[in-house]
């Protein structure tokens, strides 16, 4: 029996699992870049004759329990959102089952919520970014996420409306085109942010951004695949409902 409650609980739990796997990626691929960036920052302020900033929270805490806490909270919230999106999508995407729906929703979510905004406003390690522009950068980043979500909603609506006349394939292409046009206009119109110091290592920056993308891929991938597998299993173990629905369908 599928209930919204069970889906939401499952979403948050698979989010937790995703956070643990994402932490492994963050630890091995992300943290070395964060350490390099902080070393760069400290060397710069030392060269400028500034006193070292007092450590409010030690690096040891930031890179372990702090990082894990951040990932867990983020992933549990994401798992909840994912469960809601799955509930709306499930049974409304042709004959796609639970696993397929979950994988599709996770893939679309990764692209719409993370990859599309990232291509305009990529994540930055410490030492990159002017503290005075944090407000503007935050607003622009969330605006880009919102535009991407809106574009996806409009594209989805357009695709569905056209499907009856144009067929599923052509309607899907039209939907993608609508999404691409809206996102392209947003990319062109929204102001650019370029605050990377001229002497900051391009290699560290690239590796940091790849690590950040890897974290999200592992997170969304775990959520999508695990959620699908668990939901499919739960449905199989509810043969009464399946038979009842099958006979009434």
């Amino acid at each position, binding site marked *: 029996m599928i209930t919204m409650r069970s889906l939401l609980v499952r979403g948050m739990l698979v989010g937790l699992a995703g956070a643990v796997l994402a932490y492994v990626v963050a630890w091995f691929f992300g943290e070395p870049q964060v350490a390099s960036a902080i070393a760069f920052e400290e060397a710069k302020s030392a060269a400028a004759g500034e006193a070292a900033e007092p450590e409010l929270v030690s690096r040891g805490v930031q890179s372990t329990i702090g990082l894990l*806490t951040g990932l867990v909270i983020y992933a549990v919230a994401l798992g909840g959102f994912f469960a809601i999106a799955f509930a709306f999508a499930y049974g409304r995407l042709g004959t796609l089952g639970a696993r397929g729906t979950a994988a599709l929703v996770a893939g679309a979510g990764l692209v719409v919520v993370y990859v599309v905004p990232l291509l305009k406003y990529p994540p930055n390690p410490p030492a990159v970014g002017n503290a005075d522009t944090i407000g503007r950068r935050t607003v622009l980043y969330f605006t880009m996420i919102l535009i991407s979500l809106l574009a996806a909603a409009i594209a989805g609506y357009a695709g569905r409306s056209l499907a009856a006349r144009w067929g599923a394939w052509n309607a899907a292409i039209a939907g993608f085109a609508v999404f691409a046009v809206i996102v392209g206009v947003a990319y062109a119109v929204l102001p650019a942010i370029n605050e990377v110091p001229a002497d900051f290592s391009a290699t560290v920056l690239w590796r940091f951004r790849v690590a*950040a993308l890897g974290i999200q891929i592992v997170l969304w991938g775990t959520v999508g695949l695990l959620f699908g597998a668990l939901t499919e299993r739960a449905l199989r173990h509810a043969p009464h409902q*399946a038979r009842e629905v099958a006979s009434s369908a």
Partner: protein
Amino acid sequence: MAQPAIPVTRPLPIREILPWAVFALVVGLALLYFVGTEQGAMALINGQGVHEFVHDGRHLLGFPCH
């Protein structure tokens, strides 16, 4: 029963999803705010404790940070 019980794809009624969606959205956004934005662009709590504690996660999750 020659066939195993194949899960039948039946959508949940929108009416059943909506209240949960609103609730999850509100709680989820509050959580994301503390991981992503608190003591950055905005601050509800004085100081830098929250920011510094989730510092690495904030950077690596792609949020604008200092």
